[in-house]
């Protein structure tokens, strides 16, 4: 009887508090893996791992023009840029015309944008969706991952992570 009650308690607690379904990257604390992505937006450079680890922390944002939460995230990224955060983008499975239109409509906080047409760099980073952001420190180490769109309420956390990542 006691065992039965214990079993019901375990099942009930599982039902009331579902497990966290987000897939976190196992790459936090690791050096940024090597990659080189070609440019996709006219007039803007592509992105490679060599652009990181130059003494300044940077925010690597994984996004796409076809991703709805990325539209919601755009003004927050502009706000981060205004606060002095240097942001680079990895565009997942995107086309140049769609991306140009996306940036024209939602603003462009990116210094560089690399094209990742087959999600290869996304897998290399252990990212499992768009949008996602990684803080890379001044030595080129991945120090923080943000899953999902960065909301206004997350700005202070991101700025703190970037400031702490010299």
């Amino acid at each position, binding site marked *: 009887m006691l065992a039965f009650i214990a079993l019901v308690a375990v099942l009930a607690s599982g039902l009331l508090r579902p497990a966290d379904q987000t*897939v976190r990257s196992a790459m936090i604390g690791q050096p940024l893996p090597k990659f080189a992505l070609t440019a996709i937006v006219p007039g803007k450079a592509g992105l490679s791992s060599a652009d990181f680890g130059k003494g300044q922390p940077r925010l690597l944002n994984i996004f796409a023009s076809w991703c709805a939460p990325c539209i919601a995230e755009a003004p927050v990224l502009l706000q981060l840029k205004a606060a002095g955060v240097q942001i680079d983008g990895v565009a997942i499975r995107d086309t140049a015309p769609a991306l140009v239109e996306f940036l024209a409509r939602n603003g462009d906080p990116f210094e560089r944008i690399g094209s990742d047409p087959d999600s290869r760099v996304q897998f290399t980073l252990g990212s499992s969706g768009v949008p996602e952001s990684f803080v890379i420190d001044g030595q080129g180490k991945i120090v923080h991952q943000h899953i999902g769109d960065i909301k206004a309420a997350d700005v202070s956390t991101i700025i703190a992570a970037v400031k702490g990542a010299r």
Partner: protein
Amino acid sequence: MNPLFASPLLLLLATPSLADSNLPPARYANVAIADPAKEADARKLMETLRCLVCQGQSIADSDAEMAGDMRALVRERIAAGETPGAVRTWLIQRYGDYVTYDPPLSSKTAPLWLAPLVLLGLGGLIAARTFRRKRRR
């Protein structure tokens, strides 16, 4: 038409908004490797890898774009001569054991393997005690 009937019908007409890109699937997402032995290796591995966006399916079973890109990654690496074990290790390094349906034995997964043995031993003990009591009677 009665709105009570019309609304569920209208729901049928509505198309779900799918978060899919405009790019076609990667070449190796749905195309087999020319070498049948390598394709068999790749398929066997894909059936044990979790689709990261659907989570309840393997990448072999999923229609999600990301699963397609992951199949392409597995096939390309195996076609290039990498062993399935090396590809699996590469993915576990990035996503943790969560990415595989065949998790390696660790302190976290040990109860999965040990619990049945413990329960079997417990059952045997109870059975032995019951039989002994019967014999005495």
